[in-house]
């Protein structure tokens, strides 16, 4: 188990290196003069452009610039944001907790509602309840979160005044964004849980358990669910990345702080250091979540760690 973990951990290093090279070169390969684009918002003279180019070391060869970037990143120094003149790490730390909070809350909503609905549908297989639940799930998948978010705002903020439409920090600020984010994802989880449960419940050991007189609830909870969970863990890990991406829209609709909005602003204003920093941090957390998924996987199914 430990050897497997160590190998798995080590394999993330080249992944992260590749990611940082990709991020760095992508931004520099985009057509256009970055310095001009950064100054494009306001009136400038040609001297100002040259001055900024030198200040940013953009007049140096690309390998040097990448070296600077990598060396700084290893020390936790991601540079200074061009637009806000603050350290990139400070910008990220101001916004990352809010996005993580939203993602985790969304994951919780998705996990609870998704698995519950999925199990219910599987247990009531081929009844009207199954059909209805899957119809809701289909609607959930097709409803854009942007639209759902606005509906929630009009309903719960403007008309009922239960929750504020904007802001972050407190729990009441989290309710609507987490529901919006989670309900979309829960639909996918519900469908997956259903098919996974149906698959497992056809197995012989379930029939055996039933034959032995185990109560139906325990059959489902103890015997079926644990095995049905394996594919779901993978999807859960993938969902984490998707939810983080979905947070961009949710954060904009609900005016929450977060790295989703941070990166959109940074891309629009060509704030190179900030874009690089955020992508690096997001990629790293994505790699880490995948690592965790693999470990849980190995825990749930012992065969996996022997095979690799």
């Amino acid at each position, binding site marked *: 188990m430990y050897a497997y973990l160590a190998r798995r951990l080590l394999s993330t290093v080249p992944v992260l290196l590749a990611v940082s090279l990709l991020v760095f070169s992508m931004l520099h390969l*985009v*057509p*256009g*003069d970055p310095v*001009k*684009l950064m*100054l*494009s*918002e*306001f*009136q*400038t*003279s*040609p001297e*100002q*452009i040259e*001055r*900024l180019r030198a*200040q940013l070391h953009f007049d140096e060869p690309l390998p040097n610039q990448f070296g600077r970037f990598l060396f700084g990143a290893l020390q936790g120094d991601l540079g200074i944001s*061009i*637009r*806000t*003149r*603050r*350290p990139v790490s400070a*910008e990220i730390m*101001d*916004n990352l907790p*809010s996005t993580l909070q939203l993602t985790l809350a969304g994951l919780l909503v998705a996990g609870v509602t998704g698995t519950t609905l999925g199990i219910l549908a599987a247990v009531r297989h081929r009844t009207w309840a199954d059909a209805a639940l899957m119809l809701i799930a289909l609607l959930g998948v097709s409803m854009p979160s942007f639209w759902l978010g*606005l*509906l929630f*705002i*009009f*309903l719960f*903020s*403007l*008309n009922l*005044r239960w929750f*504020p*439409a*904007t*802001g*972050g*920090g407190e729990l009441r600020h989290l309710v609507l964004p987490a529901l919006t984010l989670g309900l979309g994802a829960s639909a996918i989880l519900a469908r997956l849980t259903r098919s996974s449960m149906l698959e497992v419940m056809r197995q012989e050991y379930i029939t055996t358990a039933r034959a032995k007189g185990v109560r139906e609830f325990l059959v489902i909870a103890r015997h079926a669910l644990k095995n049905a969970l394996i594919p779901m863990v993978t999807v859960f890990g993938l969902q984490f990345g998707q939810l983080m991406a979905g947070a961009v829209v949710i*954060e*904009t*609709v*609900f*005016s*929450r*702080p*977060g790295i989703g*909005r*941070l990166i959109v*602003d940074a891309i*629009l*204003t*060509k704030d190179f250091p900030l874009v690089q920093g955020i992508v690096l941090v997001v990629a790293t957390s994505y790699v880490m979540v995948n690592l965790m998924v693999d470990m849980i996987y190995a825990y749930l199914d012992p065969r996996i760690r022997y095979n690799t």
Partner: protein
Amino acid sequence: MKLKIYLVLAMLVATTWLLGACGPSPAAEPTKAAGATSAPPVAAPVKGGAVTIGLDSEPPTMDPHASPSAVTFYISASMGESLLYLTADRQLKPWLAESWEVTDGGKTYTFKLRKDAKFQDGTALDAKAIKWNFDRIADPKYKAGSALTYLQGYVSADAVDDYTVRVNFKAGNAPFLTYVASPVLMFVSPTATQAQGDKVNQAPVMSGPYKIDEWVSKQQITLSRWDGYTRKTPYSDHDGAGYLDKVIWKFIPEPGTRMATFESGETQVVATIPAQDLARLSASKDYTIASKAWVGLPRIWALNVTLPPTDDLKVRQAINYGVDKDAIVNSIYKGIGTKAYAPLTMAMLDDPALRAFYPYDVNKAKQLLDQAGWNTVGADGIRTKGGKRLEVVLNSIDSGAGPDQINVLVQGQLRLIGMDVKLKAQARAPWYEDNYRCATNGPILFLRDGDWNGLNAFFSSALVGSNFNFACIKDAEIDKALEQGRAESDPVKRKALYLELEKKLLDQALTVPLVDELSVWALRANVSGLKFNGFTYPMINDLSMKK
């Protein structure tokens, strides 16, 4: 089950409500184009309370000298003070400077300062502090924003005595007098700024009636009243700091959400109101609308003079005659803009001679195109010349620069004169790149500037490929006129120079002026006292709220 039905019903209601809000609505009351706020006067403001203002974007930095962004100055205009004040009707008034003198052909400016001014940290706001601020902006090691443009040609500042400061320029610099009244050139405390390092971007220490409490990233900036402020701001109805204890500037980028927070009372004042919501808000007794025309260059189509067919004067003139601006203002702006006539907005320079250029005239446009040789009309209704179709490429941006519908409307209007407008819709970065390389027939954009010198960024030969000269015009006569305008310190002569220049720009049809835009704000009925300065930035010292 009951709950689900309730939810479905509620969503239906919300949907209907939304659709209603988006659908066609009666035209808004025409709003005053220029001058002071249209909010009605209210008796005896109440002291205390907090007002939350919803903005559509977040400032990049609050350091006034570093920022290129108008949002910074929405907020900092009430945190700091400048040497002079530019009123809503463009009069210069004393503020920190009690009097001023222009000598040496506009190269030297001498300001006599008031003696009681202090920064919020207690540092004296004297000649030395002002010199330090100007040197800070001009320092090559400092990444200045708009402030550097406002100090173009700066040589030095001298503290003649404790309360007299003299600013020297390489050449005559008439716009400086307007720029020195801008929130861009407000001052930060030399002591606090040197001590706080990077933190100046988050919490600059200034000298105005409000000070910054806290900035929560992507969320809000909270200002609180600074009771140490005892002076009277030049625009205020009272001595000393504002009525409100706190003013919270909240960043709400999504327009639907922003309007929802306003109508639910989460915010009490809101900026950048979508045109389709304005009529509804104006009609309600619960709200008042305050508006002020933006200064600078209107929303304007810069016609690229280096690329066919807009390299032909007759084609450019035909476009000018062929665009129906009234239709744009009525159908898209619905009360948040008026028709534009010239490269400077009417709030900047208005003259019957400018209004006479290019009335909407389809026949005249067609005539001009005939004369230019585009006289065969193809089966698709598009004119041709020597087998070539009459096509122009409008460089359009998919976000950030305002209503896309204008592009589509212009496209439809010009089809009537036999011109095919292709829209090149793209993201911000390639949009700029095409403009810098003069690769399309031009973009539609605007420029905010408090001085006539704003024309320089659009039409100076030196700025083709690096700034807003997207008409790509290199014309010695225009360059000379721009220089003369910069150097002329006599306001009457200066105005005459810019009027001549505007006529020249219109003669050459380098642009299609489309819409003079308004900055429109909505206030809940119990909130009053929002004012604007000559740069169209909101001033909140008189803002107050009744319970």
